[in-house]
């Protein structure tokens, strides 16, 4: 019997690259899939939100946002994801254990007990917490789940999301015109800026959208099981402008 080999496949892997819709002139919308991301949700434990934010600031040098914005860079970003909730995005093929903390030159807690003993706010904690989850996706992405559990697991519940989400980056002169056909929020520069995040829906599909730059470039994060439905909406809505999938 032949050996079955399962290999990771990105959400939009089956979509042909290239131009669709109107083909005259330059494309109105440029889409690309981000396949280089590891993702995890962070939900503050009860009463630990302030300690969590302090610890993230100390370890990663980033302030977890308390309103719908994101902080960070290509290597590590935290997106607001609801009250006391965040989505961590990390890149790099340095897994399975990420030396993120070594690279930013910070102290790592030796254990959850150490982390807990450093703050009086965490007396209610009952370590040990699980330190290993499903690990990184095959292919050696940053194991963001284990990384975060080790660094901030005393203050937050961490769960890996990389296998379950799809991420598209959208730009181009008609990106606003296209998104306006499905997105119920205002993307005008006076209402939504680089660094902003919104959780909402497009064509009944739940999405998180963040603005990367003022060109403008956006990133849409959605459940990968709905990626083809989203693609169908995107192709139809960008058709009059021309879509280039790179």
């Amino acid at each position, binding site marked *: 019997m032949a050996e079955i080999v399962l290999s990771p496949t990105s959400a939009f892997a089956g979509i042909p690259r290239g131009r669709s819709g109107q083909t005259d002139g330059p494309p109105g919308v440029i889409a690309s899939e981000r396949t280089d991301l590891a993702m995890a949700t962070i939900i503050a434990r009860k009463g630990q939100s302030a300690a969590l934010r302090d610890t993230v600031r100390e370890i990663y040098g980033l302030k977890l946002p308390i*309103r*719908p914005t994101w902080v960070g860079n290509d290597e590590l970003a935290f997106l607001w*994801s*609801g*009250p006391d*909730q965040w989505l961590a995005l990390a890149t790099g093929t340095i897994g399975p254990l990420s030396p993120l903390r070594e690279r930013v030159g910070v102290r790592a807690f030796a254990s959850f007990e150490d982390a807990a003993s450093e703050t009086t706010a965490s007396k209610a904690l009952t370590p040990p917490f699980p330190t290993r989850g499903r690990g990184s996706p095959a292919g050696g992405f940053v194991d963001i789940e284990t990384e975060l559990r080790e660094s901030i697991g005393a203050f937050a519940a961490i769960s890996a999301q990389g296998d379950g989400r799809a991420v598209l980056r959208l730009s181009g002169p008609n990106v606003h015109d296209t998104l306006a056909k499905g997105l*119920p*929020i205002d993307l005008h520069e006076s209402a939504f800026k680089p660094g902003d995040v*919104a*959780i*909402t*829906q497009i064509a009944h599909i*739940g999405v998180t959208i963040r603005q990367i730059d003022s060109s403008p470039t956006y990133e849409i994060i959605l459940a990968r099981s709905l990626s083809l439905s989203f693609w169908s909406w995107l192709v139809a809505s960008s058709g009059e402008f021309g879509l280039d999938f790179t």
Partner: protein
Amino acid sequence: MRIPCPSCGERGHEEFAYLGDASLVRPDPTAPDAEARFADYVYLRDNPAGALRELWYHAAGCHAWLVVTRDTRTHEISGVEPAKAAALRRQEAG
């Protein structure tokens, strides 16, 4: 109708799921008159023509429960707060 979510900003009501009266408190099941109290809790509702505090869930947004004060005649919303804040306040008040 648009609901000003304290976290996300103003959003269309289609992003929210409706539960109902926010003033209901689950009765003590060990009380001697628990059966009658539960009947009231489960079935009996006032139907005010005017301001009503009600629970809405921001299902397609930040996933927070909100207490929305809405005029049932006009849909005018005069106040929104996270249900967590309202619950903590009630807890503190005993």
